[in-house]
C-alpha cells in the first residue's frame, strides 16, 4: 500500500524537501534571526541536519527489512544531503568561526580529537558523495561500488562520536543520536549476516 504511493514520488522531492532547511538557515542569516551568536548557531544547525540525514540514510535498509517499506530509491538523495550539510557545517567552521587562520585551523584538525574525528567523517564521505551517480556505478561495477559505500557504517560511527565529544559534559541528545547510529549499524550488520547464510 505504502509502497504503491511511494512509486509515484520521485527522489527529486527528497532533494527539494532536504534543501529547505538550508534555504531557511540562509534566509535567517540574512535577516539577522540566528540569534546572538549567528556563527555558532549556523555551524550547529548544519551539523545537526547532517547527522539527521545520516541517520535516515542508515535507516533505509533496516526499514525495508523490518517493515518491508521500500525507500531504496531515495537513499542516494539522502546520502548526498548528508554530505552537503556536513560540507556546509565544515565550511562554516573554517570560514566564519576559525576564519582561515591556517595555523590554528590545521592545529585544531590535528590536536583536538573531536575535530579530528568529525573531519575524518567528512573526508571519508567525500568519495561516497562523488560516486553517487549512475556513471560512477557503471564505471566501478556494482560490486566494488557497494563495497566502497559500506564505508558509511564506520563514517556514521565517527560522526556520532564527534557529536557526543563536542559537548563539554555528557548530554542526552548526542547520546541518543549515537545510540541510534549504533543500533542501525548493528541491524544492518545482522541483516547482512543473515543474507549470507541463505
Amino acid at each position, binding site marked *: 500500500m505504502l509502497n504503491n504511493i511511494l512509486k509515484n514520488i520521485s527522489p527529486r522531492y527528497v532533494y527539494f524537501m532536504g534543501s529547505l532547511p538550508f534555504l531557511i538557515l540562509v534566509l535567517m542569516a540574512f535577516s539577522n534571526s540566528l540569534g*546572538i*551568536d549567528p556563527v555558532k548557531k549556523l555551524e550547529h544547525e548544519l551539523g545537526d541536519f547532517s547527522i539527521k540525514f545520516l541517520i535516515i540514510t542508515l535507516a533505509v535498509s533496516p526499514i525495508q527489512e523490518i517493515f518491508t517499506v521500500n525507500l531504496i530509491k531515495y537513499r542516494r538523495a539522502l546520502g548526498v544531503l548528508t554530505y552537503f550539510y556536513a560540507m556546509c557545517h565544515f565550511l562554516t567552521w573554517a570560514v566564519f568561526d*576559525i576564519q*582561515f*587562520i591556517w595555523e*590554528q585551523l590545521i592545529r585544531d584538525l590535528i590536536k*583536538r580529537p573531536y575535530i579530528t574525528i568529525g573531519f575524518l567523517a567528512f573526508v571519508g564521505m567525500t568519495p561516497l558523495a562523488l560516486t553517487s551517480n549512475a556513471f560512477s556505478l557503471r564505471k566501478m561495477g556494482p560490486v566494488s561500488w557497494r563495497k566502497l559505500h559500506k564505508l558509511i557504517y564506520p563514517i556514521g560511527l565517527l560522526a556520532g562520536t564527534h557529536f557526543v565529544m563536542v559537548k563539554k*559534559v555528557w548530554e542526552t541528545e548526542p547520546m541518543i543520536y549515537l545510540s541510534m547510529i549504533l543500533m542501525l549499524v548493528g541491524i544492518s550488520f545482522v541483516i547482512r549476516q543473515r543474507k549470507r547464510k541463505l
Partner: protein
Amino acid sequence: MSYRYKSDLSIRDVTPESFFISRRKLTLGFSAMAAGGLVGFNTANSEEAATETPNTLEEISGYNNYYEFGTGKGDPAKYAGTLTTEPWSVKIDGMVEKPGEYSLSDLLEKMVLEDRIYRFRCVEAWSMVIPWRGFELADLLEFAGVKKEAKYVAFETLLRPEEMWGQNKNYLDWPYREGLRLDEALHPLSIMATGLYGKSLPNQNGAPIRLVVPWKYGFKSIKAIVRITLMEEQPRTSWSIANPREYGFYSNVNPVVDHPRWSQASERRIGSGFVAKRQPTLLFNGYGEEVASLYEDMDLQAFY
C-alpha cells in the same frame, strides 16, 4: 584599600541598551562565503582587532553558560526566571574573624557599589565587554576579617534543584564551586557583582550576587553565591573535578597555554555577527599590567 582599580574602558565604550542592528554587517559576510576559500580574511594580528566593541544588554543576558539552567547558551535566559533571589543570604565561614550567615541587603549596606567595565573571556574562545556594577571582594573579606592562616577563598553556588533544573542532571558535581588564591581574591580587580548596566543582575547572569575575575576564564566567575569559605588548602573547583586535564585551578586567560578543546590564541567577540574578525587573545585578558605580578615565579604552563 590601598589603591582602587581604574578601568581603561569608559562609559562611552558601552553600547546603549537598545539593540544595534546596524552593527551586524551581514551581507558582507555572505559575499565572503560565496567567494569560498578564495577570500581568506585572516587578520588575527591586525591592529584593528584590538578595538573594543562593547556588548548590548540583550547579548550579555541572552548568551550565557550557566549549566544550572541547561547547557544551551540561550537556556539560562529561558529558564533562570524560576530562581527566587529574595531573600538571599551569604554564609561566610572558615578562617574568618566574623563568621556568619549574612543577609545580602545587610552586606550591601556596608559595601561601596561602583561600575566597572571589564572584558569577559570565555574558555570557549568567545568574549564580550560588560559593564558590571559591584563592589571589591577585598572589601567584603576585610569586613569578615581574614585570619592569618587563610590562603584560599572558596565559593559555592546555591543548590536548589527545584528552581535550578539543571542540578537534576549529572552535568557537574553540584553545587557549583570555585576558588581563588587569597592574593587573587584581594586584588582590586576582583569584584562581587550585583548589577549590569546600572540595574540589578538578570537571573541568568548570576543574580543576586556573583564573582567577576576579569583576567580569568569566565567559568571562574561563579554565579548566585551563597557561601564563601576562607581556607588553608586549595579548594576543589567544579570544572576541574569534572575534567582535570582540561580545566585547571588557575585558568588565567593565556593565549599560549592551549586548552585541549580550544586554541586560546584568538577569540570571537560576540555581537559582531558574521564579519566579526577573530581577535588575538591577550595575556591575562589584557589585565597583565595589574595582575602579572601575582604570578611572577609561577610556571603558567604547569599551573593552567
